[in-house]
């Protein structure tokens, strides 16, 4: 241990090192840009590539949809390229003219208020069931699963006795059919799905067997074949005088299909409930149905609301497949209208698809946002 003498130790620095430059700004707009976009050579390349991609996609899209679009006009002339207007964007005039057809199909014009009323009833039911602040949800469930379907049937199909003329389902079309198909899917799939899920977890071997067979069978085949089966084979399986109409057959197919998927969603929810809840319920002497109805299902359904909404999104998108069995849903009306010679222009098809895409995107996006918010809400309550 030598004594420390400043003069003898040449390896000790005599002057202070020049201070390092201040660290790069990591907060604020510039800081964010630097860390998020330009933090290294690879990152810079990626940024430039994605920027190029965005430039390639977004401006032409906006030009087509908004800046070059035709907003009004009586027929195809309005949407054709002319010397003074070489670039033609979306032909919204076409959508405006056929909007009634896209929403109501061939529903008689004088009776269309009934469809509007149905939409209002449906909206009330959805808000009642899904709004986080809604009260008396049990009543809401009864309304949604019992009262509303009956009212909707009377409204849409008509009941001559109370002055509503009959409107046959062959006249239905457009958004109405899409909403009806997906609505029937959700209204039937949830109860049937719960029963199937309980059946699959049942201790009774036969009940379990039948539930498993049904669920796996339906989940193993494409919806298209289920719809084919419903539309082609179902009429053979019922007495001839019933002869269910085309829409009803598709509805049966969709409801069965959705039920099998819903069953799996509910089953996942049931599995998430800790065993203690079952044991507690049994310990206080509740019967099976009371245990399920009062203790397990309320909790299980609550945690699966996001998943239920997600499977509803899938169902909503899948309703487009009724197209294939010849039902005029929203997408089919657009397909039918886009080949109308009156509006035949090079942009008509693209406009039709763009419109359909926007409508479907808004609906599905809102639902998925809801599911995500609900999920966040649920996780926070659980954390507490």
């Amino acid at each position: 241990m030598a004594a420390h003498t400043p003069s003898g130790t040449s390896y000790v620095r005599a002057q202070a090192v020049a201070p390092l430059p201040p660290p790069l700004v990591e907060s604020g707009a510039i800081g964010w840009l630097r860390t998020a976009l330009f933090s290294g050579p690879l990152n810079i390349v990626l940024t430039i590539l994605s920027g190029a991609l965005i430039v390639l996609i977004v401006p032409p899209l906006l030009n087509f949809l908004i800046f070059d679009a035709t907003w009004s006009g009586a027929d195809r002339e309005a949407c054709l390229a002319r010397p003074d207007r070489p670039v033609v964007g979306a032909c919204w005039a076409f959508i405006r003219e056929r909007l009634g057809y896209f929403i109501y199909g061939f529903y008689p014009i004088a009776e269309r208020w009934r469809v509007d009323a149905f939409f209002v009833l449906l909206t009330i039911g959805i808000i009642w069931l899904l709004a986080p602040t809604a009260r008396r949800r049990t009543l809401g469930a009864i309304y949604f699963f019992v009262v509303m379907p009956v009212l909707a049937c009377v409204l849409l199909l008509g009941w001559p006795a109370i002055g509503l003329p009959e409107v046959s389902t062959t006249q239905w079309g457009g958004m109405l059919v899409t909403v009806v198909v997906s609505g029937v899917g959700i209204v039937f799939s949830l109860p049937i799905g719960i029963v199937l899920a309980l059946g699959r977890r049942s201790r009774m071997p036969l009940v379990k067997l039948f539930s498993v067979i049904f669920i796996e069978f339906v989940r193993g085949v494409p919806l298209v074949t289920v719809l084919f089966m419903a539309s082609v084979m179902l009429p053979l399986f019922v007495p001839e005088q019933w002869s269910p109409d085309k829409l009803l057959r598709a509805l049966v197919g969709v409801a069965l299909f959705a039920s099998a998927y819903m069953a799996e969603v509910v089953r996942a929810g049931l599995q998430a409930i800790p065993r203690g809840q079952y044991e507690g319920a049994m310990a206080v002497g509740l019967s099976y149905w009371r245990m399920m109805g009062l203790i397990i299902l309320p909790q299980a359904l609550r945690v699966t609301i996001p998943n239920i909404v997600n499977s509803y999104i899938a169902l909503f998108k899948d309703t487009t497949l009724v197209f294939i069995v010849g039902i005029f849903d929203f997408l089919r009306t657009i397909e039918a209208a886009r080949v109308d010679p009156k509006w035949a222009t090079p942009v008509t098809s693209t406009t039709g698809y763009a419109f359909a895409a926007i409508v479907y995107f808004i609906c599905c996006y809102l639902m998925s946002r809801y599911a995500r918010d609900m999920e966040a809400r649920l996780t926070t309550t659980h954390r507490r």
Partner: protein
Amino acid sequence: MKRGILTFGLAIAIASAAFSASAQTLNAIKQRGALNCGANGTLAGFGLPDAQGNWAGFDVDYCRAIAAAIFDDPTKVKFVPLSAKDRFTALQSGEVDVLARNTTWTISRDTSLGLNFTGTNYYDGQGFMVRKSLKLNSALELNDAAICVQQGTTTELNLADFFRANRMKLKTVTFATSTEAVKAYDAGRCDAYTTDASALYGERLRVANSNDHVVLPEIISKEPLGLAVRHGDDQWYDIVKWTHFVLLNAEELGVAKANVDAQMKSDNPEIKRLLGTEGKYGEALGLPNDFVVRIVKHVGNYGEIFERNLGQPTPLKIARGLNALWSKGGLQYAPPVR
């Protein structure tokens, strides 16, 4: 799958069970208050609804004639648009009472598909539509061409036969609906589009620039189009069949929409029997005796229906040709009302 096999097994087992035809179809229609008619829905001239949902066309008028015979009201028809692919199922399953969708009469359809054809209301043949720019003169030059065709039609089979018989190479592109097939042809996916010649005229109006397309002269098949009903109800079969025959007889005897009231007073025994002023031929069908008057008053006779939907006043401008009455060099020949 299992259920399917089981069904099939039982179907054979019960095959011997007796079954008696009854008047159920007519009664069901009367109870319902409307005739369910399976129609085309996309074919100008034969069956096409406008934007308001009003149907028009040659086959459509046949349904209106049947409704007029039953209800004395040609509007009591519910039209169900059917694609070629779905049409037989719709009839078999009872979704429609009658199939009036330019359907070709063949032996397999008449037997194993469970249908009864009620006559030939339009004698047709299969033709080709091509672009003028190809400068084709004959369908025999179509070797190796890509051809758009609608799925589930006799057209699809005739096409294969024609190419095979002439040792030509075929490339078909099949679509579920005629709309899609025409659209694809128009977009240049195929060199030719093939379907019944009558329909070709209508489809030609649906392509973007109809003057750029021509219909080739060859007719490669016999396509007797007609209305069809289900097996098992003979009375209903008779009604649909005789609706067609009385339309022809009315034209032959000069009974038309405008003069039907005057013709009621005619002394011609044939006209008297046709219009029900003599004999009870309607009753035998389960209809009122003046059912022909109802039909002709509301929709006219065969010639009027043809002209209104397909003839010179329409954009289709189809000549009567084979569909002229037998007395005028055509094939349309109806058994007498007697």
